[in-house]
């Protein structure tokens, strides 16, 4: 468990990032779409659209992407998006998975960064490849087989991070619902440690239980939840990265809230 020695920092605040950029001591990754990135981005940021990553997120491919972004084993990485931190979380988690130990999320979204009047430009930085080692951290990944097995144990908490109506309609048996919106505040992608702790305490998400998060399809919303749980120091958290889409495709059992027409209460 080499992770225990690492910093427990989950997010990087705006001011720290600005000074790290000035010191050239950070690699900033913008995970928005290419066109958005081209228009403007945080100075020195490189672009890794989530779709590019997802087209093949095998460790070997991710390693290539990481080295091409000039990230070595020691360089701190800060990831941001404009999607309440969910896409950034998925990218950060992937880096963590292949063994990059110093990756954090920008505490806010790019939209908010801009609304604060902070610097941005459209320059595309010149990046030299760097070497990066590969040490898979399989303890942060849950596969469907792993999940199915884990569910039979008592001390495992399975968290569904989709919206409440989706959860009511269908979910993995035994899961509890913690919609991704619950994790954020108006201008931060994660609520404060104290607030997060209280929320999770109330829900019984505490202590040494093993926790597995999942969402709809590619592990973005649940990626954010993964970091939310880490932010309060819950030590044993895994992401079921292929999430509910794979679960259904494999025809594994699901559960629903019976005898109520909750959809008709929605104004959508």
């Amino acid at each position, binding site marked *: 468990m080499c992770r225990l020695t690492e910093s427990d920092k989950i997010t990087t605040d705006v001011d720290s990032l600005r000074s790290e950029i000035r010191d050239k001591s950070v690699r900033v990754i913008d995970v928005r779409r290419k066109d958005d990135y081209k228009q403007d981005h945080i100075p020195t940021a490189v672009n890794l659209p989530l779709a590019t990553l997802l087209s093949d997120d095998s460790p070997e491919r991710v390693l290539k992407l990481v080295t091409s972004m000039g990230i070595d084993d020691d360089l701190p990485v800060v990831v941001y998006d404009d999607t309440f931190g969910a896409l950034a979380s998925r990218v950060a988690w992937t880096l963590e998975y292949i063994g990059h130990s110093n990756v954090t999320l920008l505490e806010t979204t790019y939209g908010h960064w801009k609304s604060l009047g902070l610097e941005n430009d459209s320059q595309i930085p010149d990046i030299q490849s760097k070497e990066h080692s590969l040490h898979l951290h399989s303890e942060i990944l849950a596969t469907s087989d792993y999940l199915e097995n884990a569910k039979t144990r008592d001390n495992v908490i399975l968290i569904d991070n989709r919206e409440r109506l989706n959860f009511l309609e269908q979910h993995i048996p035994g899961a509890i619902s913690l919609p991704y*919106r619950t994790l954020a505040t108006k201008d931060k992608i994660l609520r404060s440690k104290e607030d997060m702790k209280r929320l999770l305490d109330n829900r019984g998400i505490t202590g040494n239980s093993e926790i597995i998060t999942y969402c709809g399809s590619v592990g973005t919303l649940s990626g954010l939840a993964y970091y939310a749980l880490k932010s309060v120091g819950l030590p044993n958290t895994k992401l079921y990265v292929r999430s509910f889409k794979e679960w259904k495709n494999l025809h594994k059992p699901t559960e629903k809230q019976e005898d*109520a*027409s909750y959809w008709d*209460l929605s104004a959508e």
Partner: protein
Amino acid sequence: MSKIYNQTKRNFIILTVFDLKQSAPDSAKPKINWARIEEADNFAKTVKLFRQGKYDEDSFRRFRLQHGAYGTRMTGDYAMVRIKLPAGEIYPNQFEKISQLSEQYSIGSAHFSTRENIQLHWVILEDVSEIFRGLAEVGLTSREACGNSVRNVMCSPLSGVCPDEEFDSTPYALATARFFLRNPMAQNLPRKFKFNFTCCEKHGMVRMVDVGLIPQIRNVDGSSQRGFKIFLGGGLGNKSYIGYQLEEFTPEEDLLYTSIAVMRIFDRLGDRKNLARNRMRYLVNDMGWEKFQNLVFKERAIVRATQSIITQLEVDLIPNEIKRPIRISDESIASTPDGFARWLKTNTVKQSQIDYRSVFITLEAGDITASQLNALSDIIREFSSEGKARCGFVQNVALRYVHEDDLQRMYSKLLEVGLAKSGALTMTAPIGCSGTTSCNLALTNSHRLAKEIQRKFLELKLDEDDDLSDSSIKISGCPNSCGQHGIATIGFFGGGGRVGKDMYPNYQMSLGGRSDGDTMLGLTCLRIPAKRVIPVILKIIEIFKQNKKSDDTLKSWIHRIVNGNEDSKIKSINDIKKILEPLIISPTKENDPDFYLDYGSDTSYHTKTGKGECAA
């Protein structure tokens, strides 16, 4: 009358003065903080104790309801949080907070109730305290929104702007809410207790509630005195009653004494055993009105003589600041947007203040999305000269003090966010209680039926038909009247029907109910299968059109029929029944499987209910 004139004139003067003021960048902020943050912590702790088995089921239910968290259909895992909006007032920052809370802890939509509450459904019980926390940030509470307490104190959405009112009762409604909230005398009543203030006879619901109040001015020796017409002992429910007027005139000093006196009598004599008959209306009607009335007079004399002089309503009579928001850019609209005239006619009313209108937002059975709530708060800031909104009586919300010149621009903004549907003030906006979408007692999906009727009727443009505009359709999912079917021109309550072994959703229809000066309960007509409700209403409209007199509305025509005063071919409910009967013949399941399904469901219909929370 001179006082009324002065009143109006005074308002007018205030308006013109404030019109000249520069609009402040900050929007209006709530004047009263209804919240207590410690209740959030206390609730969270109590839920934990309950889950650990250290709190018994019944005590916990009482505690939960006292804090405004209601049970949910077929599950103990979820609650509905009912946020009280005293006098129906709501400010933009409060809308924004509720929007956020609905996304975080509910289903991404919120629901306007018929009693000026906003409800968040399908909230995990353990998250309720987080909602309390959020509400406290903007001064709102759900305390005593359920349970045996004084429920949200209502006030007409037109109070203060109604051309027919004698004075604005809003400050009195707020003061009453303030006095009874968390008041020890209102924590353990035999049953819930409701106050409705209104503006005038026409816009009120004063005879269908425990205490209903219409503001009145009396002239004594040349000086005018404020007071109320007070109605007691009415209410809708499994059995509904119409309230009685206490006395000709109750001066404003006696408002609190009367309220306390009535509640003390109810507290002392109300039925605490028979849970199905413990509302005050049963007490009044079992005892007989005259006896009850005398008791109130005696008790009021005692209260008056024994209460300390500091027991008073804090009525804040400082008028609201009215200032037309300044337009930042001059985006004049080139052409009139589509549907504007129709919307103007069916969604807005002229205020007593010249050049201003109140705009009612059409919702579907009271539902609104999180993003629409946000949009609405911006629209209030941009268009309402009082900087806040008022909830209506019919699952809707009104923005008042909108300047005539701003209406087109406001309509365009509403269009952008899907809130510009017409018909808010017509029969095409039916009430539908939550039904099987969340309620334990529901037998049918009344909520969805209300939406289906609205969609169909707007498509047929029935909102534009002047003959129909003063009628109403109200639907409950069970006999308990949350959908207020008893006071609808055409009312429905849900139940199950049966053909052989197959069940289908069914509604008891009533005709001729109303809640104005001629308040009466609708008369039972026929049981209508859910999937035949729309054709049946259309048929009633058709019969009406064939038989109406030239200046009749559907409401006035039905009123004559149910009172036996109609002289045309259709004289009675029986005559209507005969025409409708062919429409409600049950088809076989093979011929029409859809008949056997409720709206919003694709599995076979069966009635299924859980335990009610009402009598906790």
